[in-house]
Protein backbone atom coordinates (compact mmCIF):
# COMPACT_ATOMS: atom_id res chain seq x y z
CA UNK A 1 0.00 0.00 0.00
CA UNK A 2 2.80 2.39 0.92
CA UNK A 3 6.01 2.41 -1.00
CA UNK A 4 8.80 4.81 -0.11
CA UNK A 5 11.80 4.80 -2.35
CA UNK A 6 15.07 6.60 -1.62
CA UNK A 7 13.35 9.46 0.16
CA UNK A 8 15.39 12.47 1.25
CA UNK A 9 14.59 15.84 2.72
CA UNK A 10 16.99 18.68 3.35
CA UNK A 11 16.12 21.94 5.07
CA UNK A 12 18.84 24.18 3.78
CA UNK A 13 22.14 22.52 4.67
CA UNK A 14 20.50 20.30 7.30
CA UNK A 15 19.58 16.84 6.06
CA UNK A 16 16.53 15.69 8.02
CA UNK A 17 15.84 12.48 6.10
CA UNK A 18 18.59 10.72 4.24
CA UNK A 19 17.70 8.23 1.51
CA UNK A 20 15.26 5.96 3.26
CA UNK A 21 13.22 3.24 1.61
CA UNK A 22 10.56 0.95 3.02
CA UNK A 23 7.19 -0.55 2.19
CA UNK A 24 4.07 -1.25 4.21
CA UNK A 25 1.48 -3.75 3.03
CA UNK A 26 -2.16 -4.06 3.96
CA UNK A 27 -2.48 -5.89 7.26
CA UNK A 28 0.79 -4.54 8.57
CA UNK A 29 1.33 -2.16 11.46
CA UNK A 30 4.70 -0.50 11.13
CA UNK A 31 6.20 1.13 14.21
CA UNK A 32 8.43 4.09 13.51
CA UNK A 33 10.99 4.46 16.24
CA UNK A 34 13.71 6.94 16.83
CA UNK A 35 15.06 9.59 19.15
CA UNK A 36 13.64 13.10 18.97
CA UNK A 37 14.73 14.88 15.84
CA UNK A 38 15.56 11.65 14.03
CA UNK A 39 13.32 12.57 11.09
CA UNK A 40 10.17 10.64 11.99
CA UNK A 41 7.77 13.56 11.64
CA UNK A 42 9.47 14.86 8.52
CA UNK A 43 9.10 11.43 6.89
CA UNK A 44 5.44 11.30 7.83
CA UNK A 45 4.83 14.80 6.51
CA UNK A 46 6.31 13.81 3.17
CA UNK A 47 4.34 10.58 3.17
CA UNK A 48 1.08 12.45 3.62
CA UNK A 49 1.93 15.06 1.01
CA UNK A 50 2.27 17.99 3.38
CA UNK A 51 5.85 18.77 2.44
CA UNK A 52 7.49 17.81 -0.84
CA UNK A 53 10.59 15.60 -0.65
CA UNK A 54 13.93 16.89 -1.87
CA UNK A 55 14.51 13.57 -3.56
CA UNK A 56 12.84 10.19 -3.86
CA UNK A 57 9.44 8.69 -4.58
CA UNK A 58 6.35 8.01 -2.52
CA UNK A 59 3.50 5.92 -3.74
CA UNK A 60 0.31 5.25 -1.81
CA UNK A 61 -2.06 2.58 -3.07
CA UNK A 62 -0.37 2.80 -6.47
CA UNK A 63 -0.75 6.59 -6.73
CA UNK A 64 2.38 8.70 -6.84
CA UNK A 65 2.23 11.42 -4.18
CA UNK A 66 3.92 14.00 -6.36
CA UNK A 67 2.20 13.27 -9.65
CA UNK A 68 -1.26 12.50 -8.33
CA UNK A 69 -1.51 13.96 -4.82
CA UNK A 70 -5.30 14.19 -4.59
CA UNK A 71 -5.87 10.51 -5.37
CA UNK A 72 -3.09 9.49 -2.98
CA UNK A 73 -4.31 11.74 -0.17
CA UNK A 74 -7.80 10.34 -0.50
CA UNK A 75 -6.51 6.95 0.68
CA UNK A 76 -4.68 8.32 3.71
CA UNK A 77 -5.87 9.17 7.18
CA UNK A 78 -3.38 11.33 9.03
CA UNK A 79 -2.93 12.26 12.66
CA UNK A 80 -0.27 15.00 12.76
CA UNK A 81 2.01 15.51 15.72
CA UNK A 82 0.36 17.45 18.57
CA UNK A 83 -3.09 16.64 17.17
CA UNK A 84 -4.09 20.01 15.73
CA UNK A 85 -7.78 20.89 15.43
CA UNK A 86 -9.78 24.07 14.84
CA UNK A 87 -10.09 25.55 18.32
CA UNK A 88 -13.34 27.43 17.82
CA UNK A 89 -15.29 24.50 16.42
CA UNK A 90 -17.22 21.92 18.37
CA UNK A 91 -16.05 18.33 18.11
CA UNK A 92 -19.16 17.53 16.10
CA UNK A 93 -18.68 20.49 13.78
CA UNK A 94 -15.04 19.65 13.27
CA UNK A 95 -15.68 16.01 12.39
CA UNK A 96 -18.48 17.00 10.03
CA UNK A 97 -16.18 19.45 8.31
CA UNK A 98 -13.49 16.82 7.83
CA UNK A 99 -16.06 14.33 6.56
CA UNK A 100 -17.22 16.90 4.01
CA UNK A 101 -13.70 17.71 2.85
CA UNK A 102 -13.25 13.97 2.48
CA UNK A 103 -16.18 14.03 0.11
CA UNK A 104 -18.78 12.38 2.31
CA UNK A 105 -22.32 13.69 2.07
CA UNK A 106 -25.76 13.13 3.57
CA UNK A 107 -26.48 9.79 5.20
CA UNK A 108 -22.96 8.52 4.47
CA UNK A 109 -21.44 11.46 6.29
CA UNK A 110 -23.72 11.01 9.28
CA UNK A 111 -22.76 7.37 9.57
CA UNK A 112 -19.04 8.10 9.22
CA UNK A 113 -19.09 10.78 11.94
CA UNK A 114 -21.12 8.55 14.21
CA UNK A 115 -18.74 5.62 13.75
CA UNK A 116 -15.64 7.74 14.41
CA UNK A 117 -17.22 9.25 17.52
CA UNK A 118 -18.08 5.81 18.80
CA UNK A 119 -14.63 4.36 18.13
CA UNK A 120 -12.86 7.21 19.88
CA UNK A 121 -15.33 7.57 22.78
CA UNK A 122 -16.20 11.18 22.10
CA UNK A 123 -19.94 11.17 22.91
CA UNK A 124 -19.42 13.07 26.16
CA UNK A 125 -17.73 16.06 24.53
CA UNK A 126 -19.50 16.08 21.18
CA UNK A 127 -20.88 19.61 21.55
CA UNK A 128 -17.96 21.09 23.40
CA UNK A 129 -15.62 23.38 21.49
CA UNK A 130 -12.17 21.98 20.83
CA UNK A 131 -10.26 24.56 22.88
CA UNK A 132 -12.12 23.56 26.05
CA UNK A 133 -11.12 19.89 25.71
CA UNK A 134 -8.51 18.16 27.82
CA UNK A 135 -5.41 17.02 25.99
CA UNK A 136 -6.61 13.42 25.86
CA UNK A 137 -9.94 14.35 24.32
CA UNK A 138 -8.35 16.72 21.85
CA UNK A 139 -6.00 13.97 20.80
CA UNK A 140 -8.85 11.55 20.35
CA UNK A 141 -10.80 14.13 18.35
CA UNK A 142 -7.93 14.43 15.94
CA UNK A 143 -7.58 10.67 15.85
CA UNK A 144 -11.28 10.38 15.01
CA UNK A 145 -10.68 12.84 12.19
CA UNK A 146 -8.04 10.55 10.70
CA UNK A 147 -10.27 7.47 10.57
CA UNK A 148 -13.49 9.18 9.56
CA UNK A 149 -13.38 8.05 5.93
CA UNK A 150 -12.22 4.54 6.87
CA UNK A 151 -8.94 4.98 4.98
CA UNK A 152 -6.81 2.12 3.64
CA UNK A 153 -3.69 3.81 4.94
CA UNK A 154 -3.26 5.37 8.36
CA UNK A 155 -0.32 7.57 9.27
CA UNK A 156 -0.23 8.39 12.96
CA UNK A 157 2.39 10.67 14.45
CA UNK A 158 2.66 9.77 18.14
CA UNK A 159 -0.94 8.65 18.53
CA UNK A 160 -0.67 7.94 22.25
CA UNK A 161 1.12 11.13 23.22
CA UNK A 162 -0.62 12.85 26.12
CA UNK A 163 -3.01 10.01 26.89
CA UNK A 164 -3.37 8.37 30.27
CA UNK A 165 -2.41 4.68 30.63
CA UNK A 166 -5.96 3.43 30.09
CA UNK A 167 -6.41 5.51 26.98
CA UNK A 168 -3.02 4.41 25.71
CA UNK A 169 -4.07 0.81 26.10
CA UNK A 170 -7.32 1.56 24.29
CA UNK A 171 -5.62 3.31 21.38
CA UNK A 172 -3.05 0.52 20.99
CA UNK A 173 -5.85 -2.01 20.84
CA UNK A 174 -7.60 0.12 18.26
CA UNK A 175 -4.47 0.35 16.12
CA UNK A 176 -3.91 -3.39 16.31
CA UNK A 177 -7.50 -4.17 15.36
CA UNK A 178 -7.53 -1.70 12.48
CA UNK A 179 -4.16 -2.98 11.35
CA UNK A 180 -5.75 -6.23 10.27
CA UNK A 181 -7.41 -4.53 7.33
CA UNK A 182 -5.26 -1.47 6.74
CA UNK A 183 -1.67 -0.42 6.28
CA UNK A 184 -0.67 1.57 9.33
CA UNK A 185 2.45 3.54 10.17
CA UNK A 186 2.78 5.06 13.58
CA UNK A 187 5.64 6.78 15.28
CA UNK A 188 6.38 6.57 18.94
CA UNK A 189 9.22 6.62 21.38
CA UNK A 190 7.49 4.32 23.79
CA UNK A 191 9.01 0.92 23.15
CA UNK A 192 6.37 -1.20 24.84
CA UNK A 193 3.96 0.26 22.33
CA UNK A 194 5.88 -1.35 19.52
CA UNK A 195 5.61 -4.74 21.16
CA UNK A 196 1.93 -4.21 21.90
CA UNK A 197 0.76 -3.06 18.50
CA UNK A 198 3.31 -3.49 15.73
CA UNK A 199 3.90 -6.30 13.33
CA UNK A 200 7.14 -4.64 12.22
CA UNK A 201 9.35 -1.83 13.43
CA UNK A 202 11.81 0.53 11.84
CA UNK A 203 14.37 2.39 13.90
CA UNK A 204 15.43 5.64 12.35
CA UNK A 205 18.32 7.72 13.56
CA UNK A 206 19.56 11.00 12.15
CA UNK A 207 17.54 10.54 9.01
CA UNK A 208 18.57 6.99 8.26
CA UNK A 209 17.03 3.60 8.84
CA UNK A 210 19.28 1.74 11.24
CA UNK A 211 17.09 -1.30 11.91
CA UNK A 212 14.08 -2.88 10.26
CA UNK A 213 12.35 -6.06 11.44
CA UNK A 214 9.67 -7.64 13.58
CA UNK A 215 9.83 -6.72 17.26
CA UNK A 216 11.15 -10.25 17.97
CA UNK A 217 13.88 -9.94 15.39
CA UNK A 218 14.93 -6.62 16.83
CA UNK A 219 14.96 -7.97 20.34
CA UNK A 220 17.27 -10.75 19.23
CA UNK A 221 19.81 -8.10 18.33
CA UNK A 222 20.05 -7.27 21.99
CA UNK A 223 23.21 -8.11 23.90
CA UNK A 224 21.03 -9.81 26.50
CA UNK A 225 19.05 -11.92 24.07
CA UNK A 226 19.45 -15.67 24.66
CA UNK A 227 21.43 -15.23 27.84
CA UNK A 228 20.66 -17.86 30.45
CA UNK A 229 20.43 -16.60 33.99
CA UNK A 230 20.75 -19.15 36.79
CA UNK A 231 20.74 -19.08 40.55
CA UNK A 232 22.20 -22.08 42.43
CA UNK A 233 22.58 -22.85 46.10
CA UNK A 234 25.34 -24.66 47.92
CA UNK A 235 28.01 -24.08 45.36
CA UNK A 236 30.94 -21.75 45.08
CA UNK A 237 31.26 -19.19 42.34
CA UNK A 238 34.48 -20.68 41.19
CA UNK A 239 33.01 -24.15 40.79
CA UNK A 240 30.08 -22.79 38.84
CA UNK A 241 32.34 -20.78 36.62
CA UNK A 242 34.55 -23.77 35.89
CA UNK A 243 31.82 -26.21 35.13
CA UNK A 244 29.82 -23.86 32.89
CA UNK A 245 32.87 -22.66 31.02
CA UNK A 246 33.25 -26.19 29.70
CA UNK A 247 29.93 -26.03 27.84
CA UNK A 248 30.23 -26.07 24.07
CA UNK A 249 27.19 -23.82 23.71
CA UNK A 250 28.49 -21.09 26.01
CA UNK A 251 30.64 -18.26 24.81
CA UNK A 252 31.27 -16.82 28.22
CA UNK A 253 30.08 -17.21 31.78
CA UNK A 254 29.88 -14.39 34.24
CA UNK A 255 29.29 -14.66 37.96
CA UNK A 256 27.00 -11.78 38.83
CA UNK A 257 27.25 -12.11 42.61
CA UNK A 258 27.77 -14.53 45.47
CA UNK A 259 25.77 -14.12 48.63
CA UNK A 260 24.63 -16.34 51.53
CA UNK A 261 25.79 -19.46 49.76
CA UNK A 262 23.91 -18.53 46.59
CA UNK A 263 25.46 -17.86 43.22
CA UNK A 264 23.94 -15.73 40.42
CA UNK A 265 25.46 -16.41 37.02
CA UNK A 266 24.86 -15.42 33.41
CA UNK A 267 25.76 -17.67 30.53
CA UNK A 268 26.14 -16.07 27.09
CA UNK A 269 25.30 -18.21 24.07
CA UNK A 270 27.86 -18.95 21.41
CA UNK A 271 26.26 -17.74 18.18
CA UNK A 272 22.69 -18.47 17.06
CA UNK A 273 21.01 -21.58 18.40
CA UNK A 274 17.46 -22.92 18.77
CA UNK A 275 15.52 -21.57 21.75
CA UNK A 276 16.10 -23.56 24.92
CA UNK A 277 19.28 -25.34 23.80
CA UNK A 278 21.55 -23.38 26.07
CA UNK A 279 19.11 -23.58 28.99
CA UNK A 280 18.94 -27.38 28.62
CA UNK A 281 22.72 -27.66 28.50
CA UNK A 282 23.07 -25.46 31.56
CA UNK A 283 20.51 -27.42 33.55
CA UNK A 284 22.31 -30.69 32.70
CA UNK A 285 25.61 -29.18 33.73
CA UNK A 286 24.05 -27.97 36.96
CA UNK A 287 23.42 -31.57 37.98
CA UNK A 288 24.22 -31.93 41.66
CA UNK A 289 23.60 -28.32 42.63
CA UNK A 290 20.31 -27.05 43.97
CA UNK A 291 18.94 -25.01 41.11
CA UNK A 292 16.77 -22.16 42.37
CA UNK A 293 16.13 -20.35 39.17
CA UNK A 294 16.89 -20.78 35.49
CA UNK A 295 15.56 -18.74 32.61
CA UNK A 296 16.46 -17.49 29.15
CA UNK A 297 16.29 -13.75 28.61
CA UNK A 298 14.47 -12.59 25.48
CA UNK A 299 16.26 -9.30 25.15
CA UNK A 300 14.67 -5.91 25.50
CA UNK A 301 13.87 -3.40 22.81
CA UNK A 302 15.19 -0.66 25.06
CA UNK A 303 18.63 -2.16 24.91
CA UNK A 304 18.52 -2.54 21.16
CA UNK A 305 17.20 0.98 20.71
CA UNK A 306 19.85 2.43 22.98
CA UNK A 307 22.73 0.47 21.58
CA UNK A 308 21.80 1.35 18.01
CA UNK A 309 21.02 5.02 18.46
CA UNK A 310 23.61 5.84 21.12
CA UNK A 311 26.64 4.04 19.76
CA UNK A 312 26.85 6.35 16.79
CA UNK A 313 26.40 9.44 18.92
CA UNK A 314 29.30 8.53 21.18
CA UNK A 315 31.64 7.86 18.28
CA UNK A 316 30.53 11.09 16.67
CA UNK A 317 31.10 13.19 19.77
CA UNK A 318 34.46 11.44 20.10
CA UNK A 319 35.58 12.68 16.72
CA UNK A 320 34.32 16.14 17.56
CA UNK A 321 36.44 16.19 20.65
CA UNK A 322 39.55 15.09 18.83
CA UNK A 323 38.99 17.83 16.31
CA UNK A 324 38.78 20.55 18.91
Amino acid at each position, binding site marked *: MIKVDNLS*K*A*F*GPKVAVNHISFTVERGEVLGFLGPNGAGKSTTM*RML*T*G*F*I*PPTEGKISVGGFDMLANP*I*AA*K*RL*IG*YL*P*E*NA*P*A*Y*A*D*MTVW*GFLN*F*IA*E*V*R*GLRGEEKKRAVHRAVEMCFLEAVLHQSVDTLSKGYRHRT*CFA*QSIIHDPDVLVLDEPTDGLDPNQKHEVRGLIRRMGERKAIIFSTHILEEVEAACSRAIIIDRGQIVANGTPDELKRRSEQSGVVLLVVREASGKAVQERLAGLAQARRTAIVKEENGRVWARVYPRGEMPDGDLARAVSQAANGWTLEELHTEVGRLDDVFRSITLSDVSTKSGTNESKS
Partner: protein
Amino acid sequence: MSATQNIKTIAKRELGEYFSSPLAYVVIVIFLLLIGFFTFSRAGGFFERGQASLDMPFFAWHPWLYLFLVPAVGMRLWAEERRVGTLELLFTMPITAGEAIIGKFLASWIFLAVALVLTFPVVITVNYLGTADNGVILCAYIGSWLMGGAYLAISCITSAITRNQVISFIVSFMICLALVLCGWPPVTDFFTRWDKPWLVNIISSLSVMSHFEWFMKGVLDSRDIIYFLSIIGFSLFTTGVILRSHRAG
Protein backbone atom coordinates in the same frame (compact mmCIF):
# COMPACT_ATOMS: atom_id res chain seq x y z
CA MET B 1 -15.49 15.65 -5.71
CA SER B 2 -15.59 18.84 -7.68
CA ALA B 3 -13.56 21.94 -6.95
CA THR B 4 -16.65 24.08 -6.29
CA GLN B 5 -17.80 21.69 -3.61
CA ASN B 6 -14.40 21.77 -1.94
CA ILE B 7 -14.32 25.55 -2.06
CA LYS B 8 -17.84 25.69 -0.62
CA THR B 9 -16.91 23.37 2.26
CA ILE B 10 -13.82 25.40 3.13
CA ALA B 11 -15.68 28.70 2.86
CA LYS B 12 -18.57 27.43 4.97
CA ARG B 13 -16.26 26.41 7.80
CA GLU B 14 -14.37 29.68 7.64
CA LEU B 15 -17.57 31.73 7.74
CA GLY B 16 -18.81 29.70 10.68
CA GLU B 17 -15.59 30.50 12.47
CA TYR B 18 -16.01 34.23 11.78
CA PHE B 19 -19.43 34.31 13.30
CA SER B 20 -18.49 32.18 16.28
CA SER B 21 -15.62 34.47 17.26
CA PRO B 22 -16.06 37.81 19.03
CA LEU B 23 -13.59 39.49 16.68
CA ALA B 24 -16.12 39.46 13.86
CA TYR B 25 -18.78 41.24 15.88
CA VAL B 26 -16.30 43.74 17.24
CA VAL B 27 -15.11 44.55 13.74
CA ILE B 28 -18.65 44.93 12.39
CA VAL B 29 -19.80 47.12 15.29
CA ILE B 30 -16.75 49.38 15.07
CA PHE B 31 -17.16 49.68 11.31
CA LEU B 32 -20.84 50.62 11.61
CA LEU B 33 -20.21 53.09 14.44
CA LEU B 34 -17.38 54.81 12.59
CA ILE B 35 -19.11 54.95 9.24
CA GLY B 36 -22.25 56.27 10.91
CA PHE B 37 -20.28 58.90 12.76
CA PHE B 38 -18.34 60.07 9.71
CA THR B 39 -21.41 60.16 7.50
CA PHE B 40 -23.76 62.07 9.74
CA SER B 41 -21.33 64.27 11.66
CA ARG B 42 -19.82 67.46 10.30
CA ALA B 43 -16.90 65.45 8.92
CA GLY B 44 -19.01 63.84 6.23
CA GLY B 45 -21.56 66.61 6.24
CA PHE B 46 -24.46 64.50 5.03
CA PHE B 47 -27.04 66.99 6.31
CA GLU B 48 -25.07 70.14 5.60
CA ARG B 49 -24.77 69.33 1.90
CA GLY B 50 -28.49 69.18 1.41
CA GLN B 51 -28.07 66.62 -1.40
CA ALA B 52 -29.64 63.19 -1.69
CA SER B 53 -26.35 61.50 -2.52
CA LEU B 54 -23.98 59.25 -0.61
CA ASP B 55 -20.71 59.54 -2.50
CA MET B 56 -18.90 62.17 -0.47
CA PRO B 57 -20.46 61.74 2.97
CA PHE B 58 -20.51 57.94 2.97
CA PHE B 59 -18.48 56.11 0.32
CA ALA B 60 -15.50 58.47 0.38
CA TRP B 61 -14.68 57.13 3.83
CA HIS B 62 -14.55 53.51 2.77
CA PRO B 63 -10.97 53.38 1.42
CA TRP B 64 -9.77 54.83 4.74
CA LEU B 65 -11.92 52.78 7.10
CA TYR B 66 -11.04 49.60 5.24
CA LEU B 67 -7.41 50.21 6.12
CA PHE B 68 -8.22 49.10 9.66
CA LEU B 69 -11.23 46.94 9.10
CA VAL B 70 -10.03 44.65 6.34
CA PRO B 71 -6.60 43.67 7.69
CA ALA B 72 -8.38 42.85 10.96
CA VAL B 73 -10.70 40.53 9.06
CA GLY B 74 -7.94 38.95 7.01
CA MET B 75 -5.07 38.73 9.46
CA ARG B 76 -5.99 35.38 10.95
CA LEU B 77 -6.80 33.58 7.69
CA TRP B 78 -3.46 31.78 7.33
CA ALA B 79 -1.47 33.00 10.32
CA GLU B 80 -3.79 31.14 12.68
CA GLU B 81 -3.74 27.93 10.63
CA ARG B 82 0.03 27.95 10.70
CA ARG B 83 0.28 28.79 14.39
CA VAL B 84 -2.13 26.09 15.53
CA GLY B 85 -0.89 23.51 13.03
CA THR B 86 -4.22 22.92 11.30
CA LEU B 87 -2.50 23.87 8.07
CA GLU B 88 -1.01 20.40 8.16
CA LEU B 89 -4.48 18.89 8.35
CA LEU B 90 -5.84 21.09 5.61
CA PHE B 91 -3.02 20.39 3.17
CA THR B 92 -3.12 16.64 3.68
CA MET B 93 -6.79 16.54 2.73
CA PRO B 94 -7.72 15.58 -0.82
CA ILE B 95 -8.10 19.20 -1.94
CA THR B 96 -5.76 21.48 -3.83
CA ALA B 97 -4.06 24.47 -2.23
CA GLY B 98 -5.90 26.71 -4.69
CA GLU B 99 -9.26 25.46 -3.50
CA ALA B 100 -8.31 26.14 0.11
CA ILE B 101 -7.00 29.62 -0.70
CA ILE B 102 -10.05 30.60 -2.72
CA GLY B 103 -12.44 29.10 -0.17
CA LYS B 104 -10.93 31.00 2.71
CA PHE B 105 -10.74 34.22 0.73
CA LEU B 106 -14.37 33.95 -0.35
CA ALA B 107 -15.48 33.43 3.23
CA SER B 108 -13.79 36.62 4.38
CA TRP B 109 -15.12 38.47 1.36
CA ILE B 110 -18.66 37.33 2.15
CA PHE B 111 -18.10 38.47 5.71
CA LEU B 112 -17.17 41.90 4.36
CA ALA B 113 -20.34 41.88 2.26
CA VAL B 114 -22.37 41.27 5.41
CA ALA B 115 -20.73 44.26 7.09
CA LEU B 116 -21.51 46.37 4.01
CA VAL B 117 -25.13 45.22 3.83
CA LEU B 118 -25.57 46.23 7.46
CA THR B 119 -25.00 49.85 6.46
CA PHE B 120 -28.45 49.76 4.82
CA PRO B 121 -29.94 52.35 7.25
CA VAL B 122 -27.84 54.98 5.49
CA VAL B 123 -29.50 54.09 2.19
CA ILE B 124 -32.94 54.16 3.77
CA THR B 125 -32.21 57.55 5.30
CA VAL B 126 -31.13 59.15 2.06
CA ASN B 127 -34.15 57.74 0.25
CA TYR B 128 -36.47 58.99 2.97
CA LEU B 129 -35.06 62.51 2.92
CA GLY B 130 -34.89 63.00 -0.82
CA THR B 131 -34.87 61.31 -4.20
CA ALA B 132 -31.61 59.47 -4.39
CA ASP B 133 -30.16 57.78 -7.45
CA ASN B 134 -30.14 54.22 -6.19
CA GLY B 135 -28.32 53.00 -9.31
CA VAL B 136 -25.34 55.15 -8.40
CA ILE B 137 -25.50 53.93 -4.81
CA LEU B 138 -25.57 50.28 -5.89
CA CYS B 139 -22.64 50.89 -8.22
CA ALA B 140 -20.65 52.47 -5.39
CA TYR B 141 -21.48 49.53 -3.13
CA ILE B 142 -20.14 47.14 -5.77
CA GLY B 143 -16.99 49.22 -6.05
CA SER B 144 -16.59 49.29 -2.30
CA TRP B 145 -16.94 45.54 -2.09
CA LEU B 146 -14.40 45.01 -4.88
CA MET B 147 -12.00 47.38 -3.18
CA GLY B 148 -12.46 45.52 0.10
CA GLY B 149 -11.73 42.29 -1.77
CA ALA B 150 -8.47 43.74 -3.05
CA TYR B 151 -7.47 44.76 0.49
CA LEU B 152 -8.46 41.32 1.74
CA ALA B 153 -6.40 39.51 -0.86
CA ILE B 154 -3.40 41.59 0.20
CA SER B 155 -4.13 40.61 3.80
CA CYS B 156 -4.10 36.98 2.65
CA ILE B 157 -0.50 37.42 1.52
CA THR B 158 0.66 39.04 4.74
CA SER B 159 -1.24 36.46 6.76
CA ALA B 160 0.53 33.68 4.89
CA ILE B 161 3.93 35.25 5.46
CA THR B 162 3.79 35.23 9.24
CA ARG B 163 2.37 33.24 12.13
CA ASN B 164 1.90 36.49 14.01
CA GLN B 165 -1.46 38.14 13.42
CA VAL B 166 -0.30 41.55 14.64
CA ILE B 167 2.54 41.66 12.13
CA SER B 168 0.15 40.50 9.44
CA PHE B 169 -2.22 43.34 10.36
CA ILE B 170 0.45 46.03 10.32
CA VAL B 171 2.07 44.93 7.05
CA SER B 172 -1.20 44.69 5.16
CA PHE B 173 -2.23 48.05 6.62
CA MET B 174 0.95 49.59 5.23
CA ILE B 175 0.56 48.05 1.77
CA CYS B 176 -3.07 49.13 1.52
CA LEU B 177 -2.19 52.61 2.79
CA ALA B 178 0.40 52.92 0.03
CA LEU B 179 -2.23 51.86 -2.52
CA VAL B 180 -4.62 54.50 -1.23
CA LEU B 181 -2.11 57.32 -0.91
CA CYS B 182 -0.61 57.05 -4.36
CA GLY B 183 -3.87 58.39 -5.78
CA TRP B 184 -4.65 60.88 -3.07
CA PRO B 185 -4.50 64.50 -4.37
CA PRO B 186 -1.87 65.76 -1.88
CA VAL B 187 0.45 62.97 -3.00
CA THR B 188 -0.28 63.23 -6.73
CA ASP B 189 0.17 67.01 -6.49
CA PHE B 190 3.61 66.39 -5.13
CA PHE B 191 4.53 64.36 -8.21
CA THR B 192 2.93 66.92 -10.53
CA ARG B 193 5.59 69.39 -9.44
CA TRP B 194 8.16 67.23 -11.21
CA ASP B 195 6.35 68.09 -14.36
CA LYS B 196 6.22 64.55 -15.63
CA PRO B 197 2.57 63.87 -16.39
CA TRP B 198 3.20 60.27 -17.45
CA LEU B 199 4.71 59.48 -14.04
CA VAL B 200 1.74 61.01 -12.26
CA ASN B 201 -0.53 58.96 -14.46
CA ILE B 202 1.19 55.69 -13.71
CA ILE B 203 1.31 56.28 -9.98
CA SER B 204 -2.24 57.42 -9.64
CA SER B 205 -3.58 54.67 -11.84
CA LEU B 206 -2.05 52.18 -9.41
CA SER B 207 -4.14 53.64 -6.64
CA VAL B 208 -7.42 52.19 -5.44
CA MET B 209 -8.67 55.76 -5.08
CA SER B 210 -8.63 56.66 -8.75
CA HIS B 211 -10.53 53.47 -9.59
CA PHE B 212 -12.97 53.61 -6.72
CA GLU B 213 -13.90 57.22 -7.60
CA TRP B 214 -15.53 56.06 -10.82
CA PHE B 215 -17.69 53.61 -8.94
CA MET B 216 -18.71 56.41 -6.56
CA LYS B 217 -19.80 58.50 -9.52
CA GLY B 218 -21.92 55.62 -10.73
CA VAL B 219 -19.66 54.64 -13.64
CA LEU B 220 -19.24 50.90 -13.98
CA ASP B 221 -16.14 50.69 -16.15
CA SER B 222 -14.68 47.29 -16.98
CA ARG B 223 -11.17 48.68 -16.55
CA ASP B 224 -11.86 49.50 -12.90
CA ILE B 225 -13.41 46.10 -12.30
CA ILE B 226 -10.41 44.42 -13.94
CA TYR B 227 -8.08 46.50 -11.78
CA PHE B 228 -9.57 45.20 -8.55
CA LEU B 229 -9.99 41.64 -9.81
CA SER B 230 -6.38 41.54 -10.96
CA ILE B 231 -5.14 42.68 -7.54
CA ILE B 232 -7.23 39.87 -6.04
CA GLY B 233 -5.98 37.31 -8.54
CA PHE B 234 -2.36 38.30 -8.21
CA SER B 235 -2.50 38.37 -4.40
CA LEU B 236 -4.16 34.97 -4.10
CA PHE B 237 -1.61 33.50 -6.47
CA THR B 238 1.21 35.01 -4.39
CA THR B 239 -0.40 33.56 -1.27
CA GLY B 240 -0.21 30.14 -2.88
CA VAL B 241 3.44 30.59 -3.76
CA ILE B 242 4.28 31.67 -0.21
CA LEU B 243 2.39 28.79 1.39
CA ARG B 244 4.18 26.36 -0.88
CA SER B 245 7.60 27.82 -0.14
CA HIS B 246 6.98 27.42 3.62
CA ARG B 247 6.31 23.74 3.12
CA ALA B 248 9.21 23.18 0.77
CA GLY B 249 11.48 24.36 3.59
